[in-house]
């Protein structure tokens, strides 16, 4: 089964880190990234730029209406994701638990809606 593993963190956590803490955190992420890709359960996973760089688009009578944001309603923002391909939810939970963000943020698992091709 495929899941999107969504990583939510408070961006201020990173702002409050000194150089050493930042390096240690990055090292954890690289380890995690290596493990998850090495295990062959994820071929796609990326970190996202902070929400201050986000742009929102809606259709406005045939023209795109573009706005800055969205601005945070909660402290924890989507900061990255992995696409997982595992046997079941328990295996997905194991990977979510290993994710460094599980200790200082939240990790959400959403099953992919699979459509029959036809």
């Amino acid at each position, binding site marked *: *089964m495929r*899941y999107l593993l969504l990583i939510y963190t408070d961006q201020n956590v990173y702002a409050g880190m000194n150089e050493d803490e930042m390096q240690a955190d990055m090292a954890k992420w690289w380890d995690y990234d290596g493990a998850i890709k090495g295990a062959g359960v994820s071929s796609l996973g990326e970190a996202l730029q902070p929400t201050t760089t986000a742009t929102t688009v809606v259709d406005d009578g045939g023209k795109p209406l573009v706005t800055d944001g969205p601005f945070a309603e909660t402290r924890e923002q989507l900061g990255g994701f992995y696409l997982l391909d595992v*046997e*079941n*939810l*328990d295996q997905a*939970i*194991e990977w979510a638990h290993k994710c460094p963000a599980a200790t200082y943020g939240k990790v959400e698992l959403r099953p992919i809606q699979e459509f029959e091709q036809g």
Partner: protein
Amino acid sequence: MAILAGALGGDVDRAEEAVQDAYAVALDRWPRDGVPSTPAAWILTTAKRRAIDRLRREASLRDKQALLARELEDAVRDLPGEDEAMIPDERLGLVFACCHPALAPEAQVPLTLRLVGGLTVPEIARALLLPEPTVAQRMVRAKHKIRVSGIPLAEPAPDALADRLAAVLAVLYLIFNEGYAATAGDAVVREDLAGEAIRLARIVHLLLPDEPEPAGLLALMLLHHARRAARVGADGDLVLLEEQDRERWDRAMIGQALPLVDRALTLRRPPGPYALQSAIAAIHAQAARPGATDWRQIALLYAELGRVQPSPVVTLNQAVAVAMADGPAKGLHLIDALARDGALDRYHLLHAARADLLRRLGRPAEAAAAYDRALELATLPAERRFLARRRAECEG
């Protein structure tokens, strides 16, 4: 069938269909639950209910909401668990799936009763004092989530087993306590619920015979349930443990529980919380009268329980046992520390226990104040009467 056809507005096909349905239900139920005293009436009632169900189903299919419901039903159709003749591994997998932490807690109980216990939706609704549609809706949603989010119908990986098993046992104990607490509803039905929890605990114990905690939980339930006849007085009120007629305790059930307690305590060291609680219940069950209770042993078990599962309530129970074993002064020392901590300030038993020790230490004014506080917080009539009686003694 003619009666039924009349009731259904003359639709004989529908009546026949409904009676067929009812016979199918009877074939499934009667060998298991026994034949009802009036089988024909039973068939008629069941057939009527089935016909109404069918009519409802057909009628509601016309609107969109019901279409969604049908989609969900389709989605869960291939889920196993509705048939009784399941191989043990499947059944165990189902237990773990029903109590999976990814499911809403309010869905875990009805789902376990339905898929593992085999109860019907109306039976579950009655037992949990919930409207049938609420139970049905929770069930459909939870089954849908099991399937769509990939909750495995399997025993969890060994490193996750302890936590997941604890979640399963917590659900079973919750079901049992729903029946045991008897705070609301039809007492007879509630006793059935306690019995159902015991049946489920027995299934889990048989499926995982080498795990100590299912044995401990089963023993704990049996030991509590063995007191059921003595727990309620002629006036329908709860009777406190010390005041129960121990002749009315179910000795056969206690006899079943004791070997399970031994097993739960010795299978793994240190013993888990259910094993320890069952050991405490076993000591009470083996005392011929309240005065013969081995309080020293109980105090030790509570101390151990406090280590594996720290909680202020456990500490309070330990303090009471210490007071019984080593005198009120030692117990009061522990309870005062707990009272300063404040976590149990709204728990009437903290104040009741403190009052009792102050009374025994010959400090009636302080005891009376503590009884007053306990009386402010206690709700059960039997407890209130007991506290008021003791409160009055402090003034004499």
